[in-house]
């Protein structure tokens, strides 16, 4: 079977399909099928069918390979292949202890997980809970539940801190993991965790897991003879969800709230547009670019209508606000002292802060390392300004 024949049959299908559409939808414009147009079904041409159903092992190129993709370089594999196995495979050289870990943890982790790894709000607690797994409400932490230390290292390195993942040095990760172990009374404060001492650590719940045994422990769920009539009597309600009342609002309420929300938003838009007239110099292109740059901030900071304090304080009307000036928000010490010095957020201080937060506010818990591009700083500031009228 020649290649040109294959091409022809494929073209045949296309022509036929197009003509069908023409006859169906343009009834004033009926065209006759060209005589040489063929209807090709998958079993019309055995070669065609094989290509259509090509499996790596069936046909196609030699060795069942397609010759697609390219070789990965060593540096590429090293950049992405960071997983750590329970036996320590994959651990880089490095070390840290709980004493410096406490500092690193306070800087990068405490804002969500608490100074003592006890967890803030709904964020996970990382310490405590030993021997509670059989209790009514087990407390599952790194200490009480996680079977392998490698999991902690792997997860902290690859996915933390939330909102600025893959930003910690290997030594910082060792230090943070050492501090979490210390908070769980698994190691002493001067224990140096390193790629060499890693396997010395015993995780309390290492023997707490079994492999899925449903096929045996739940075998009675299979081939059960089911009763179809007169199976029981006297059905009574034993628990009602309505009593708990934790369901998000029902449809009716939600509808009326929806329309209320719509009104609020449209009012808001009006107010905002008035405010925008006041802030005459806003560059809409820059605001748009700033919205994109702000993605780096939004996992911790809310802005806009209804913005609340989250991991970081809300940023509505930030310019003119005292640094560390939102009552009730748990600021880093540095911001409290800046507030006491009477310092205020303006374009200048914000520019400096966004370029290097840790240099501008030494000791800030904010994990973001700063914008590298000046353009991002400018546009972020412009974006922040567009919410100047909101509270």
């Amino acid at each position, binding site marked *: 079977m020649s290649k040109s024949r294959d091409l022809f049959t494929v073209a045949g299908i296309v022509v036929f399909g197009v003509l069908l559409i023409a006859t169906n939808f343009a009834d004033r414009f009926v065209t006759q099928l060209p005589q040489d147009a063929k209807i090709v079904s998958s079993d019309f041409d055995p070669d065609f069918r094989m290509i259509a159903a090509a499996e790596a092992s069936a046909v196609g190129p030699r060795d069942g*390979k397609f010759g697609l993709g390219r070789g990965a370089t060593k540096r590429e594999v090293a950049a992405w292949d960071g997983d750590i196995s329970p036996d320590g495979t994959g651990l880089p050289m490095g070390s840290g202890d709980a004493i410096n870990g406490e500092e690193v943890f306070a800087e990068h982790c405490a804002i969500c997980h608490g100074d003592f790894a006890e967890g803030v709000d709904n964020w996970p607690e990382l310490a405590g809970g030993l021997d509670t797994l059989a209790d009514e409400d087990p407390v599952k932490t790194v200490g009480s539940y996680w079977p392998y230390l490698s999991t902690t290292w792997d997860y902290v390195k690859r996915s933390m801190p939330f909102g600025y993942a893959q930003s910690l040095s290997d030594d910082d990760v060792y230090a943070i993991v050492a501090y979490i172990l210390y908070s769980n009374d698994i190691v002493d404060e001067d224990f140096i965790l390193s790629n060499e001492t890693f396997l010395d650590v015993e995780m309390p719940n290492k023997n707490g897991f079994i492999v899925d045994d449903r096929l045996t422990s739940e075998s009675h769920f299979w081939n059960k003879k*089911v009763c179809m009539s007169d199976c029981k009597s006297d*059905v009574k309600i034993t628990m009602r969800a309505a009593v708990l009342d934790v369901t998000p609002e029902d449809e009716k309420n939600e509808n009326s709230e929806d329309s209320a929300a719509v009104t609020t938003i449209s009012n808001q838009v009006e107010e905002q547009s008035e405010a925008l007239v006041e802030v005459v110099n806003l560059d809409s292109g820059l605001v748009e670019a700033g919205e994109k740059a702000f993605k780096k901030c939004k996992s911790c900071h809310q802005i806009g209508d209804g913005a609340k304090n989250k991991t970081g304080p809300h940023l509505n009307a930030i310019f003119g606000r005292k640094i560390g000036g939102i009552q009730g928000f748990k600021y880093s010490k540095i911001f409290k002292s800046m507030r006491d010095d009477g310092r205020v957020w303006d374009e200048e201080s914000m520019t400096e802060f966004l370029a290097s937060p840790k240099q501008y506010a030494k000791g800030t818990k904010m994990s973001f390392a700063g914008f590298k591009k000046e353009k991002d700083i400018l546009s972020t500031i412009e974006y922040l300004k567009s919410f100047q009228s909101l509270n």
Partner: protein
Amino acid sequence: MADDFSDKKPSRRQFLAGAAALGAGSTAASSLSASDDDPLITEVQEWAQITGDGVDATPYGLPIEFEKDVVRRNVGWLTADTISSINFSPIHALDGTITPQGCAFERHHSGAIELRKEDYRLMINGLVDQELVFTYEDLERFPREQHVYFCECAANTGMEWAGAQLNGVQFTHGMIHNMEYTGVPLRTLLNEAGLNAAGDLKGKWIFVEGADASSNGRSIPMEKALDDVLVAFKANGEALRKEHGYPARLVVPGWEGNMWVKWLRRVEVLDKPVESREETSKYTDTLADGMSRKWTWAMDAKSVVTSPSPQSPISHGKGPLVISGLAWSGRGAITRVDVTIDGGENWYEARLAQPGTKMALTRFYLDIEWDGEEMFLQSRAHDETGYVQPTKEELREVRGLNSIYHNNCIQTWWIKSNGEAENVEIS
């Protein structure tokens, strides 16, 4: 015009109420008078006179405004932040089996990222003959397959372990969607890299991770990887949505949704599992004695009545009633669904809208003549392996009260005589 419309409302309601009172039987025309005339029929309506939207009014259409309540919903108190959270498909308002992408539940661990096709790279590394990097374009040049599969979060119905808690099937069972995927079998990609280096494939694993900040890495046994796992780039005929892993995600048929890694960027062949955070500290099931099950990948057979249900009450009074629901199994095809209206005293075999297919949702119906009395509705799924969906008590007997994931118990809706429904547990 607006006045006209509101004028018609009462009579339309009257008509509906009248129909309900009359029940299902048709009424002889001779017994009807002019006052029974429905103005929606007897008067020429605006939409029958003036024209509607032209073809390009909505280049990509959204559902009509009257359906604006059929949306994903979130339970705020469940998680600390919506960036690492889950929402729920509005299954109370859907029929058939395919979940439209726009209302299919989302679960993110570090938010839904925007990754352009041009920036997409998929690496195959580890115990392979040649470590490879594919572009998105490369993926589209491999032979493709199409399959309909459900994706269920292991935590679906997890809030109901301790007792009836959330009043709506969207919230109790909505961490599920069912789509037709187009993609490349993972075995094709693994074969492209070559598995000779892995030696005996028995006992070998793959580790898969995403390109987002969470990476959400999971270990999967090689046997499954070579069986039916897909790298999918289309769902229901169109590109994946951002929130479902655009441009490419893993599809792991029948297994818990957490393994369906979105924004898939790397597949590593290993001789042991990684024991990542998502397969040790999460997605494990703690039993009454404090021991925990791990690697509980398969989603057991499950079903639920989607209507009537708390968000979809009966509004039409007694008479013909369509009881409708969904059934699925991660171990194979659904073969049968039983439905009871009296809390399990008597069961009836429901009608499957279409024969069940492997690891996909099956729609079932039970068409009854409702007498207007209260009902306790339940459904019970059977799959092709002979598994029968258990009651909550049966599950608790084996697993205790501290489980979160894999709650596939029989659900009860209490339908009151006014047609309203509530999530309850019964004796």
